[in-house]
């Protein structure tokens, strides 16, 4: 068994602009009074526009064959700031379907379904504002189209969380929901984001600011500076994955670990495991190895670190923008790791599974020792008390309770919204469902048993069996779009399948029976697995 030697390869996934390019960018809304809807009266589909009372631009597409069912789309996370230096521009347009895909819009309107959505009044972490906007928008639509009978909410990422919260808070408005790779409650989501950011800063570049950004443009520039530093870190880690060298910007603790022979890839992998990001990514499966003597060593020692790196590069833009947005909205940091024991965030299973990647137990112990809260070289983040109080007082924390028929679509290795978010939702629902069955059995004593209806179907988007590829000389080949990896890595076929299921549920009041027998189900690498066991977000398992 020999350690593989390979040249570092320039992956496309690490650059300052690519870290941000996937974000939806929307301009700040300015209107303060609801307007519209103003309809063009076109046939076969008329378009109506207007603004809600909080200034969100909205749009409606209503077919002449309107059958009384309307879908309301919630888009994903958008930057709250204009950031031209990173190639971002401001756009406040309404979104009525995933990426406003005209094929999907036509697919729905051809069925007689109306399609609506807004751009929301504010971006960033906007769950509370967006639920209010959606509530108002449904009212506006119903007032205009009085034969409306059913409302189906759908959305992905931030919009997935908004959709779930909307259905949770307003089951009287929502007949069914399609929730795709949703965000978790902010407490859980922020821990995931800021753990990643803080751990990277702590070991690889302590000059990163991360907290205490100034307001306005100055803060924008500070955050841009951080983005560039994170980009430099990730590039350095990628370049040295074989040698194990640490970035030159590393902290004293990091350099001490390097001096003790711990490769930077082990530290990177440990950061990923502590935060809870998947170690399987679009290019790296942790299973296949090159057809060389490294066939076993590669997937054990290198692939998990590279998978973590690829996934971190996909989430870090969201993480930084989200963290800064909340700092701005709350007037300070509401993240606090001043007493966090990071050693408790490494599961026993991860310690065993990734042991070779960590370089052994001694290396794990050495790395964790530098994360001691008393280490002066690893200064912790202390939350701002006022910001924390404001956060708790004003932010709705979704419970994940399922009150209307809900179809969830989730990628098993989503780097932005880990699978554990949906796993928790599913686990809690199974508890509720079991309780409902017990209640039905109790009621059976007097009125006969009536089985409760299952309200949640989770469709997992899973990976192929193996997918990593190598050149003849053993170099890894970058792969884009592997099913079950990446953020919102769904096709039009996925969206059609999910919204059709939700529409059926809205129509019948129950989830479609045996979704998995649909012919396109397996082709899309979907599975329904009520025995899945993805780890919940660390917020729930370590706090």
């Amino acid at each position, binding site marked *: *068994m*020999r*350690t593989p030697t390979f040249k570092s390869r320039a992956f496309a996934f690490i650059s300052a602009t690519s870290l941000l390019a996937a974000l939806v960018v929307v301009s700040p809304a300015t209107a303060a009074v609801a307007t519209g809807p103003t309809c063009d009266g076109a046939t076969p589909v008329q378009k109506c526009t207007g603004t809600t009372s909080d200034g969100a631009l909205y749009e409606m597409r209503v077919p002449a064959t309107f059958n009384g069912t309307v879908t309301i789309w919630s888009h994903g996370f958008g930057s709250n700031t204009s950031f031209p230096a990173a190639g971002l521009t401001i756009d406040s347009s309404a979104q009525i379907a995933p990426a406003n895909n005209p094929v999907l819009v036509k697919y729905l309107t051809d069925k007689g379904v109306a399609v609506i959505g807004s751009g929301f009044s504010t971006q960033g972490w906007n769950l509370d504002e967006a639920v209010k906007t959606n509530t108002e928008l449904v009212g506006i639509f119903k007032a205009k189209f009085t034969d409306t009978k059913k409302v189906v909410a759908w959305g992905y990422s931030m919009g997935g969380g908004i959709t779930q919260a909307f259905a949770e808070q307003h089951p009287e408005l929502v007949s069914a929901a399609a929730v795709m790779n949703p965000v978790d409650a902010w407490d859980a989501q922020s821990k995931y984001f800021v753990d990643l950011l803080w751990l990277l800063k702590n070991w690889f570049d302590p000059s990163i600011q991360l907290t205490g950004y100034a307001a306005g443009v100055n803060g924008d520039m500070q955050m841009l500076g951080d983005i560039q530093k994170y980009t430099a870190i990730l590039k350095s880690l990628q370049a040295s994955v074989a040698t194990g060298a640490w970035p030159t910007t590393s902290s004293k603790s990091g350099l001490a670990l390097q001096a003790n022979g711990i490769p930077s890839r082990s530290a990177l992998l440990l950061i990923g495991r502590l935060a809870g990001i998947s170690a*399987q990514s679009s290019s790296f*499966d*942790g*299973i296949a190895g090159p057809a060389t*003597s490294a*066939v*076993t*060593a590669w*997937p*054990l*020692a290198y692939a998990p670190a590279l998978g973590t790196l690829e996934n971190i590069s996909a989430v870090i833009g969201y993480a930084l923008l989200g963290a800064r947005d909340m700092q701005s909205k709350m007037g300070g940091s509401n993240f606090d790791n001043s007493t966090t024991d990071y050693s408790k965030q490494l*599961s*026993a*299973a991860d*310690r*065993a*599974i990734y*042991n*070779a990647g*960590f*370089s*052994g*137990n*001694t*290396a794990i112990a050495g790395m964790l020792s530098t994360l001691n809260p008393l280490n002066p070289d690893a200064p912790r983040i202390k939350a701002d008390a006022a910001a924390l109080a404001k956060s708790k007082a004003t932010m709705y924390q979704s419970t994940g309770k399922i009150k209307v028929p809900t179809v969830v679509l989730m990628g098993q290795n989503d780097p932005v919204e880990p699978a554990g978010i949906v796993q928790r939702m599913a686990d809690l629902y199974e508890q509720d469902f079991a309780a409902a069955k017990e209640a039905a059995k109790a009621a059976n004593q007097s009125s006969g048993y009536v089985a409760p209806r299952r309200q949640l179907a989770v469709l997992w988007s899973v990976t192929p*069996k193996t997918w990593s590829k190598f050149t003849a000389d053993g170099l890894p080949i970058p792969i884009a779009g592997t099913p079950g990896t990446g953020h919102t890595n769904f096709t039009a076929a996925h969206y059609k399948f999910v919204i059709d299921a939700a529409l059926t549920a809205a129509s019948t009041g129950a989830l479609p029976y045996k979704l998995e027998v649909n012919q396109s189900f397996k082709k899309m690498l979907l599975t329904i697995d009520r*025995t899945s*066991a993805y780890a919940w977000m660390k917020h729930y398992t370590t706090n």
Partner: protein
Amino acid sequence: MSSKARRTLLIVQAVIAAGALSLSALPAQAAEVGVTSSAIKLGITLPMKGSASYGYNQLPGAMKAYFDYVNANGGVNGRKITLVVKDDGYLPKQAIQNTQDLIGKDKVFAMVGALGTANNQAVADAVNLGRRGIPSLFINTGFSGFNDRKAYPTSSTLLPSYVMEAKLMSKYIKETYADKKVCLLYQDDDFGDDALVGFDKDHGNLTFTSKIAYPSLSQGVAGVPDAWVGKFKAAGCEVQIVFGVSSATLYTVLAAAKAQYAPKWILGSVGADIASINPATTPYIIGATSMSFMPSVVDPKDEYVAKFKEIHAVYNAKAKFNSWALIGMNSAFLTVQALKAAGKNLTRAGLLAALDSGGAKFANAGLVPLNYSKTSNVGYNGYWFGKFNTAGDLVPNDTFTYTVYTTDSGTGAVEKSTYSRPDMPAKGLPN
């Protein structure tokens, strides 16, 4: 017919009718996954190819050989056993996928003989066998963590724990090599951590002149084993323990030969078989000490060895009958007994209950007791010591007389075993 007789008949008819009604009211017994009236499907995932497969890859063939023999003799309660084998390359992610496929696609009734500490931890964590009630019997690992029945309610291990092994090793070394400088090379993971517990002052109480923890895979890096050997030699080590995998042992003994470092070698049970990696290296371990819970595979008088060898020659004729074949056939032999004990109405819960209630008394080739019970999912609990002969086989001595020791994973004493092994059933078929 008298009125009394007529009344009796009516009552009997009513009772029969009531019985029929109650029977028909019962739900039909749902068929257990992987079980039909004529077949039982089992699954195993382990490394079959690649650098980590040597030795282990002989287990499934041997298991199948015994199952085929049982099938040829009527099966288990009329059911023929099939074993679905999947190669995981010793990769946890592949083991997870294999197990998911075995359960979800191949629809196996139970897992048997899966191999590896990390792989089985990964499977337990991701596939959640416990919550799903799926048995994973006779796992080939000695990691003490699996002895947590709450965490692994449907799993059972086969090997003595690595803590036990280190405790026994400590006693042997203190008795055999008193006052010698003892050094330790161990794998820097859960496997090695278990050993450290077994060696510590509360357990084996063995002190080391020098010890080195090697991260898994580092043994294959050029120059690294030479550095280990250099440190041990410089420390004046006289007794050298290698508590690692076979490749670590291989590279270490090769480096030692190069450096003319010639201690008394004590090789852990997991990593002693370097001949399976490269038969030409057998001379490097001649005279080295190791341990086993099974009889020596070349024991000419052991009835289990003889019977398994005979069956193996018929049903796995192309493969060599060696220590791996013996372990594989013994695992299959245990599996058949567990299936029989679970009864004709075979269920997963019934299989687990059968192992709990009767597993400790199953006939088997092991020279130490099995410890399965309602509170223990641990297999064997001891070892005998022997040395490798010129053919590379571990033997206790020239007369094949075994001195067997037993202990626990706690602070219990190491004792000479008084265990009396059950006789091999007639024809090698469990009663």
